[in-house]
């Protein structure tokens, strides 16, 4: 437990997967907040140079996300022709719905 509370402990990862036909998947794990948002931001920078046709966030393994994490996703939405979240964990779905962003990220009913 001490390790988790250590300031230097970073509890999130982001992987970029370049797919076919201009689609890029960023797979995020862990807790996305003010301390870890830059990890995702760096992955987005890599994934969106050059600008992809489709950017997909795989957020199934995200244990926590707050508005600092949402901010990164919304910034990323400006750097690709289309952006969606698929799949999403429960907390991601909950936060996205509460902020009225489901449609924005292709998570409609």
């Amino acid at each position: 437990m001490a390790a988790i509370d250590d300031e230097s402990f970073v509890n999130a990862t982001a992987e970029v997967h370049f797919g076919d036909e201009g689609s890029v998947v960023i797979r995020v794990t862990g807790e996305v907040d003010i301390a870890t948002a830059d990890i995702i931001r760096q992955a987005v920078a890599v994934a969106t140079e050059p600008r992809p046709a489709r950017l997909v966030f795989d957020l199934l393994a995200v244990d926590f996300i707050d508005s600092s994490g949402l901010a990164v996703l919304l910034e990323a939405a400006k750097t690709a022709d289309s952006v969606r979240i698929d799949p999403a964990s429960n907390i991601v779905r909950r936060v996205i719905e509460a902020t009225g962003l489901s449609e924005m990220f292709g998570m409609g009913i």
Partner: protein
Amino acid sequence: MDARRFPNRSASVRQARRFVAEQLSELPPDLIEVVTLMVSELATNCLRHADADFTVSVQVETDRIRVVVADDGPGSPQLRSPTPSEPYGRGLQIVSEFSDDWGFDVSPGAGTSVWFSVHLEGNSASAANTTSDRSGAPIRHRVRPMSQRAAGESVDHIRDGVGDTIDDQRPRPEARRCRPTERQRSRNVAWRCRKAAVLIRF
């Protein structure tokens, strides 16, 4: 009530979530999830806007959880409704969505404290001492996601009790205690006035 002070650094936000989750460990995971989410938002606001250490206090009562996040910095919280093209400004929106009640106190020279509460329903024993929560005992919290609210329904209306939750259709003695007292109502009125002042600045 348990309280802890956290230093002005980004890792404190996660530590504040851990601290609150520990205080609520007997409660349902679903509830812990939204409370820690709101704590994360308020702690982040302390770092972003006040650039100051902050203190988190957790109070678990029979029928509600109340959390206060306070800092020594200047400024007052501002509830916003950003468009999708605006990445920031959703912290208090999230608190407003997932809490049953929230507000703030700003004292010149003494910092800012923001609080929220979440009601526990059908809980006749002390929440902190209830061990049957995990087996499905009817401890629930009144969280209505935006998707279940009427389009354009404002937070003020929810606070007024217009379209309020399931309690209104199914009156139960223990649920009635969750309704605001006259004192709380008058406090909400004061809060709305302050919020209006905040909104005018936008």
